[in-house]
């Protein structure tokens, strides 16, 4: 296998081929390519840990993980992550041992482990690499860079090398679109990839240099805070908001929050004051949860808030605890941001030292509140608040049935406040400067400012804090865009805005957004963009409900068919009819999965038409799709056809 040149993937599909073919286990077993049979032979011998020695080693790893993190439900994910890190996968013996320690059925632990993108029950490489397949990273050549690294290291994308030195795969947006293309290596983000960097990285891996000894500048995350306003500009001193609130009381704080008009910054826009009030009014053991899952492709503003404004975020959570009486809070940090874990823990320690966290807060007899951090493991659905709560509880992160809502029945069925990072950061400032100060900015229904994560085809990608009510055209002026095809506001689930609509405003009453703002230059291919978004939804669907589990896969197949020029008018009709089905889904992911297709079809029907075959009937048989398995087995992707 060492001498094999990689078969070119001329007519390859986007991302994981297996994702849309339904042959995943099969492809995994054969390792994606023709040389992998040999690979498999080598691997099968060492796959199962069976010697007494290695069993002891696994037991030691589990012991260490358990003693470091604990065995309460909220520690399950951390323990599994730790074992994945130490063994480069989750050996069956380890899962059994974890099941015993947590007093859970083995199958339940397997069910949790298999859900997450960064946890594996089959061995991964000692260097486990994930390239972000976010459309912005792809448009900055991430696919060619991945091919280059794979070629250098002599393995196929999606595969583990025979000697288990390295595995290379893709993952959804890593939150580095302002400085992409990016990858994660053993959890560490590497932004600004270049061909030279790929070669150097391959060299480090071949020489087996530990990641901790790689050049520090490779890992440097730049801050692109391009426009400051209320939130980013106002100086902050730890404890000022909390002490003010303690002096003036819960009633005053809720009044100020109401006056501020603050609405949730995570996307849905529920008034924060009302959420806290409802939670307070429901009896029980209250919890406060900060949603730092930031999974919306193209968003990275929470990354910067957690990096530079962490204390303000934690104070916001403490204010919510003051209102609701919660004694425990959780910050749910997406796995991709694991590098922020240590600084965040340091920030928590500092607050404890200052008496702003822990027992007897601010010297008060009956005010106790502390915060734990739970780190995710690669699953976009965990940003959905009820799935997030399940994830913390150590369950499969399926969204829950609603009603009841988390405010009355959340973590461990207790009343729970869940807010976005930015919402908490804003609440802290409102507690210092009052509601009116905040409400001076913005529009009638959208008060204050919004952090936008701007990426794509513009001169200055980065974070822009803008007043609500700003038009898309104005934002494009700020970041320096040229000729554009359109802008995707709010990530794949949001709105595709064509140039004719650039007078629309960023506001809850017009273009609501969690913060993602992707700029597409006029040279981009709209079908390609929509297909990649379809790929994102198919990959991230949790699989709980029928319409989304099957519908997102069908949608991806149809988009692929159109993208390759195999589709007919009937396929477009079929695509349109998926809208109604996806609307019957269980949660927001399914409800919005059709948006990119619907919006791009509405604005650019011509682009779709141009890709169709000139037939007035639609063959139900998709030849390309049927041949996919054979192509995978032979490693021939239609290149030979062009030679005829």
């Amino acid at each position, binding site marked *: 296998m060492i001498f094999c040149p990689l078969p070119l993937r001329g007519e390859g599909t986007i991302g994981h081929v297996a994702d849309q073919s339904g042959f995943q*286990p099969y492809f995994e077993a054969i390792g994606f390519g023709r040389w992998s049979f040999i690979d498999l032979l080598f691997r099968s011998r060492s796959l199962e840990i069976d010697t007494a020695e290695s069993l002891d080693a696994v037991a030691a790893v589990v012991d260490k993980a358990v003693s470091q993190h604990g065995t309460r439900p909220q520690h399950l994910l951390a323990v599994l992550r730790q074992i994945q890190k130490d063994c480069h996968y989750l050996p069956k013996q380890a899962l059994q041992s974890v099941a015993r320690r947590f007093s859970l059925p083995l199958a339940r632990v397997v069910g949790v482990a298999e859900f997450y993108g960064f946890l594996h029950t089959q061995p991964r490489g000692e260097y486990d690499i994930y390239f972000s397949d976010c459309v912005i990273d792809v448009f900055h050549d991430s696919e060619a860079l991945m091919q280059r690294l794979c070629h250098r290291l002599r393995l196929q994308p999606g595969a583990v090398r025979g000697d288990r030195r390295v595995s290379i795969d893709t993952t959804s947006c890593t939150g580095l679109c302002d400085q992409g293309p990016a990858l994660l290596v053993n959890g560490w983000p590497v932004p600004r990839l270049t061909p030279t960097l790929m070669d150097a990285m391959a060299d480090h891996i071949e020489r087996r240099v530990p990641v901790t000894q790689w050049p520090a500048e490779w890992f440097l995350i730049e801050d692109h805070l391009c426009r400051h306003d209320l939130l980013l500009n106002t100086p902050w001193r730890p404890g000022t908001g909390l002490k003010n609130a303690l002096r003036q009381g819960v009633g005053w704080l809720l009044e100020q929050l109401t006056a501020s008009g603050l609405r949730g910054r995570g996307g849905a826009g529920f008034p924060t004051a009302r959420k806290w009030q409802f939670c307070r009014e429901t009896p029980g053991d209250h919890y406060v949860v900060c949603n730092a899952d930031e999974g919306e492709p193209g968003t990275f503003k929470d990354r910067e808030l957690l990096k530079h404004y962490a204390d303000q975020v934690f104070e916001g959570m403490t204010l919510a605890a003051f209102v609701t009486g919660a004694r425990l809070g959780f910050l749910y940090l997406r796995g991709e941001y694991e590098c922020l874990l240590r600084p965040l823990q340091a920030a928590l320690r500092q607050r404890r030292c200052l008496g702003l966290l822990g027992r007897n807060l601010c010297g008060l007899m009956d005010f106790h509140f502390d915060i734990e951090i739970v780190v995710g493991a690669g699953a976009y659905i965990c940003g959905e608040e009820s799935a997030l709560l399940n994830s913390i509880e150590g369950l499969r992160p399926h969204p829950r049935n609603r009603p009841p809502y988390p405010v009355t029945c959340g973590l461990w069925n207790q009343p729970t406040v869940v807010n976005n990072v930015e919402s908490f950061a804003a609440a802290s400032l409102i507690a210092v400067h009052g509601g009116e100060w905040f409400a001076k900015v913005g529009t009638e229904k959208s008060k204050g400012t919004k952090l936008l994560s701007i990426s794509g085809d513009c001169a200055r990608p980065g974070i822009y804090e803008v007043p609500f009510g700003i038009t898309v055209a104005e934002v494009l002026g700020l970041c320096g865009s040229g000729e554009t095809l359109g802008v995707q506001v709010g990530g794949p689930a949001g709105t595709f805005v064509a140039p004719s609509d650039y007078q629309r405003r960023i506001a809850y009453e017009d273009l609501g957004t969690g913060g993602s703002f992707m700029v597409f230059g006029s040279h981009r291919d709209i079908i390609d963009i929509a297909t990649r978004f379809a790929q994102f939804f198919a990959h991230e669907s949790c699989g709980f409900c029928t319409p989304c589990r099957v519908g997102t896969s069908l949608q991806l197949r149809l988009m692929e068919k159109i993208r390759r020029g195999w589709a007919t008018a009937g396929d477009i009709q079929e695509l349109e009819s998926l809208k109604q089905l996806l609307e019957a889904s269980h949660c927001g992911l399914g409800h919005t999965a059709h948006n990119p297709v619907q919006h791009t079809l509405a604005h650019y029907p011509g682009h779709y038409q141009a890709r169709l075959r000139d037939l007035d009937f639609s063959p139900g048989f998709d030849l390309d799709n049927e041949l996919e398995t054979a192509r995978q087995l032979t490693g021939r992707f239609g290149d030979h056809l062009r030679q005829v």
Partner: protein
Amino acid sequence: MPTISFDGQEITFEPGQTIIEAAMASDLYIPHLCWHPDFPPHGSCKLCSVKVNGRICSACTFPAAEGQEVVSSSEEVRQLRLRLTQMLFVEGNHFCPSCEKSGQCELQAMGYYLGMTDNHYPHFFPVRDIDASHPHVLLDRDRCIFCELCVRASRADGKNVFELAGRGIHTRLVVDSPSGKLGDSNLDVNDRAAHICPVGAIVVKETAFRIPIGQRKYDRRTIAEVSVAEEAPLLRKRYEQKED
């Protein structure tokens, strides 16, 4: 008693009831696959989708409320349910003519009930494992629709034999045993979990093809008739037990 309008008909409900419970209590059928009167509602198959005041909701989880207008039997809703059923067919491998559950299968009966004449969507032909290791119970994952009834039933049995694993379209049913095989689990053929599967994914061995064609469960009655005859009484029993 409070009432809702169900397909234009006024029906009463008890506070706390879901829409499907209210309908069932009045002997009105709403299609469903993952709902069962003996277990907590799940809300995953979406066959029970109805329009509540113009919005699509799952009748099995949505609470009934005074004055609601529920539409269940419009052509639009039937079409939605038909497509959902077809989705369930194509994502698995359902070879009805050779399946021992044929005639007794809720998915198949649902297809007939909704007037399904083709699969509409392309087949996914997934490769899934069959597990015949248990002496009395067969697990054929090709036919699984991920309703989690076996998961819920096994929890009620106090055993946790079944769980879901994987994600999205790669979701799969797993068994709680060191080898992952049913034969090594503590499933007993008399467990509720061994008999609850609405399709032919979990079947009891040596019982296949015993009932002649023409006399099977859904040969003479529609799934609606069977449901009202068999499930409505179970629901009533549950309410009576609650009141005692």
